[in-house]
């Protein structure tokens, strides 16, 4: 059968170590839904109080996605666009 190359074993080891470090890091996260976490204590009250007034959008999710985090949404769109372009460039060979 196929021999395991040392590079693959190295890759496996580095993946496992990185994963273990990331899992270890999640121990320091605030508990899920913790009212005293920084996000719940500072960001959420600000958005809940001001978003509807400053954006005229009663749906806070839309206000956050479209305005407060517009940059994030922009690159989500660009990612989808790039995926479409890549599939088109690789696969499309019309038989016309």
């Amino acid at each position, binding site marked *: 059968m196929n021999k395991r190359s040392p590079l693959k074993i190295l890759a496996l080891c580095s993946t496992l170590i990185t994963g273990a470090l990331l899992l270890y890091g999640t121990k320091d996260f605030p508990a899920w839904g913790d009212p005293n976490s920084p996000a719940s204590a500072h960001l959420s009250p600000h958005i809940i109080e001001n978003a509807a*007034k*400053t*954006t005229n959008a009663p749906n806070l999710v839309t206000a956050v996605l479209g305005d407060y985090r517009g940059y994030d*949404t*922009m690159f989500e769109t660009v990612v989808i*666009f790039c995926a479409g372009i890549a599939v088109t460039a690789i696969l499309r060979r019309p038989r*016309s």
Partner: protein
Amino acid sequence: MKRLQEHFEVHDPNLNLIIQTSIRILVPFVQLFGLYVIVHGHYSPGGGFQGGVILGASFILMGVGYDLKKSMELFPEAWNIAMANLGTTIFVGTGLVCAAAGGLFLDYGALSNWIGIEPAAWRSLGIFAVEAGVGFTVTSVMLSLFWDLSSRGELDGGL
């Protein structure tokens, strides 16, 4: 004779009639609902991504029920590519226009420097423009992914 039998096993005419008729009835409502989800994103769950997927699914439904040619008649390939580009351009262009009006990138409120309605109204309009751009891109990319993946990129028969 055998080929005819095979043909009718694959393309059962009665089955096709039922499917195609129900899809023809269904598609306008699906498209209307997709537009509603995009436009009503300010007030209810929804927005560009979800509405775009629903709109794209309506064209995919035409492609499944009939064939790829039918869905490419409704939404030509060139328009599809143009719309995907247009959507992304609307999004980035909105941000650039805001920057040109003296604010930050994607800071829609800054447009009140040019046309003096209050910043909150501009932010609402800006969110809508951005969601519309997302909807355009997602609709056409969904459909183009379906075309390419279902016909191995040859765009002839489809499923």
